[in-house]
């Protein structure tokens, strides 16, 4: 049985595992909507360059074994090296408090499942859950039908969480291919501030498919930073859809650093609902072998006087394939919009390829929108400069690629994360140098 049939087949068993059932109807509706169209194919414009067949042809276990053999040392090895960061650790879908460390007391931080089961949260779920997620999308609907894992975080008015929170999703001790539907809900109230680092790790040889949906609400004068650190193994598939809605005078950043995973599809939607909003999207992708990484972004400029900045850098080795599709929609009332989009790519080997497509739909007449995409190779003069100083070809190449990618990490203000991204760059470029 392929994944599509399984999703229909397993749903009543899945509902049976839940304690709180108030979402049952919504879940069934979502599944029906999914079943009607099924998984997107290459005929679908949004999946023209990304073939999902290798994902959808496989069978998956929808109910991961909870038991695991992950040691504290193993977990520490995944750290960014900053001991005092808060962290929340999910293993095989389940929150493990003994591995987690939460020092914040003035915010509501719960596992998604716990929040769902708690009657006190019904109201907040009614207000936020699945309100900005697009209900026409296959993976989002599938997630709504099956979501159980993930976290819920509400940062109350004027609460500033200084330390970043690293959220780990680990999968281990699974004998079969496993399917996770992860759902995160983040509400950052007026004047509040929070910074999240999210990473997924498959520690088995069997395949993991993670279908993750995140809804972020950033209120007036609030600031949200979300860093996705994607460096999973070769038997991992990730389909992520993050929806970020912003109110006036707010700032939201989503950075996506992709170094691993067999097939990764990142969807990112920014929805503006007030004036003077700033949105930042940065991405660095370095992949090789026959990996595929696809970034689809969309900024919905619905209101005047807002700004959005997209800066995506891609480096592709071997036979890897990159996709970038960046959409900017400017509503006719969204005057004085300033939207900037840049996607630059370097292909290092003959077999590597990139499909890049900027897409601007502008209905207002007093706006500044710019976009640019490039595909190229390394500058020969720069290579000569470095080599003439005694730096070998391989190291010179790595230094220049680091320089190329660097401006997409300018606005990371977490030093250990910057160091980690730099280290991963060196690792992927097979050099042992420190940048």
């Amino acid at each position, binding site marked *: 049985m392929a994944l599509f049939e399984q999703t229909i087949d397993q749903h009543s068993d899945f509902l049976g595992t839940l304690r709180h059932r108030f979402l049952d109807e919504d879940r069934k509706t979502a599944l029906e909507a999914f079943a009607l169209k099924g998984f997107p194919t290459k005929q679908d414009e949004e999946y023209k360059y990304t073939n999902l067949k290798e994902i959808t042809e496989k069978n998956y276990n929808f109910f991961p074994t909870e038991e695991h053999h992950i040691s504290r040392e193993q977990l520490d090895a995944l750290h960014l090296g900053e001991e005092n960061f808060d962290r929340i650790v999910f293993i095989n879908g389940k929150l493990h408090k003994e591995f987690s460390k939460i020092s914040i007391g003035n915010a509501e931080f719960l596992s998604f499942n716990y929040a769902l089961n708690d009657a006190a949260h019904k109201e907040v779920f009614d207000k936020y859950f699945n309100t900005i997620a697009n209900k026409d999308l296959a993976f989002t609907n599938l997630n709504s039908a099956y979501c159980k894992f993930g976290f819920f975080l509400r940062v109350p008015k004027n609460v500033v969480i200084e330390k970043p929170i690293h959220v780990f999703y680990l999968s281990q001790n699974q004998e079969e291919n496993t399917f996770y539907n992860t759902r995160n809900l983040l509400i950052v109230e007026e004047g509040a501030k929070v910074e999240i680092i999210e990473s997924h790790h498959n520690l088995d040889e069997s395949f993991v498919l993670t279908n993750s949906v995140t809804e972020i609400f950033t209120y007036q004068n609030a600031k949200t930073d979300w860093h996705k650190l994607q460096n999973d193994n070769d038997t991992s598939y990730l389909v992520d859809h993050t929806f970020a809605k912003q109110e006036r005078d707010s700032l939201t950043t989503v950075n996506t650093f992709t170094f691993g995973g067999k097939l990764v599809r990142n969807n990112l939607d920014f929805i503006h609902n007030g004036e003077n909003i700033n949105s930042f999207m940065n991405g660095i992708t370095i992949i090789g072998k026959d990996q595929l990484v696809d970034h689809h972004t969309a900024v919905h400029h619905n209101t005047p006087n807002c700004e959005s900045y997209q800066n995506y850098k891609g480096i592709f080795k071997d036979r890897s394939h990159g996709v970038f599709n960046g959409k900017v929609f400017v509503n006719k009332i969204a005057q004085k919009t300033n939207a900037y989009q840049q996607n630059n790519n370097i292909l290092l080997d003959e077999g590597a390829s990139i499909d890049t497509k900027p897409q601007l739909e502008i209905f207002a007449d007093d706006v500044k929108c710019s976009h640019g995409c490039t595909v190229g190779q390394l500058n*020969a003069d720069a290579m000569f400069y470095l080599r003439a100083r005694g730096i070998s070809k391989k190291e010179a190449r790595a230094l220049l690629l680091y320089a190329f990618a660097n401006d997409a990490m300018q606005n990371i203000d977490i030093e250990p994360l910057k160091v980690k991204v730099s280290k991963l760059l060196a690792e992927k470029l097979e050099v042992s140098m420190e940048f």
Partner: protein
Amino acid sequence: MLQIKNLHAKIEDGAEILKGINLEIKPGEVHAIMGPNGAGKSTLSSVIAGKEDYEVTEGNILFEGEDIAEDAPEERAHKGIFLSFQYPVEIPGVSVTNFIKAALNETRKANGLEDMGAKEMLGLIREKSEQLGIKKDFLSRSLNEGFSGGEKKRNEIFQMMMLNPKLAILDETDSGLDIDALRIVADGVNKFKNEGNAVLLITHYQRLLNYIQPDFVHVLADGKIIKTGDKSLALELEEKGYDWLLN
């Protein structure tokens, strides 16, 4: 140290630029190559340093008796050849310090030496940067990014002093420098200079030679050295231009 014999070189798939150069540089000497625009001055320095855009079609380049024509640029650097660039490349995100550390340690590794210890490295960086009046915060800036013309050249000389090559080729190091910067750069070169190493200055103007005294001045025109003399030749060129030699 450097012997160039009947060197012919062309751009890959292009015209011949060097048309039979002969040049010998011995340890302890300072040579200057002057000449009009388009004479092949920068091509000569690039060919000695091993730029792959050029193809040597005839002749030899011997460094300490060894033919280096087949060596990669980094191998030539490891043997002790340094080229100061007319247009140094900007590398955002890589600090001056980290870059020089990488360059120095790669050269040491190629010569069978261990990486330089952090303390020793820091001491050396401090010593050389102070000699050139380079401030501390300059060292943590991204390599050449947003540097003024003078800062770029000073940084090139700083790297030369750190790497301590046997042969330093300075390609138009004086261009874009005001008089104070020119003095500092020249002072750095004079401090670097000793009996065991050599300097090749490539320049369009005579003014650098007021500060760095050459033993030999060569005039390069249309891919050949057409005249060699002592430093008085440079003054003569300054006064008369190149036309009297070309006709």
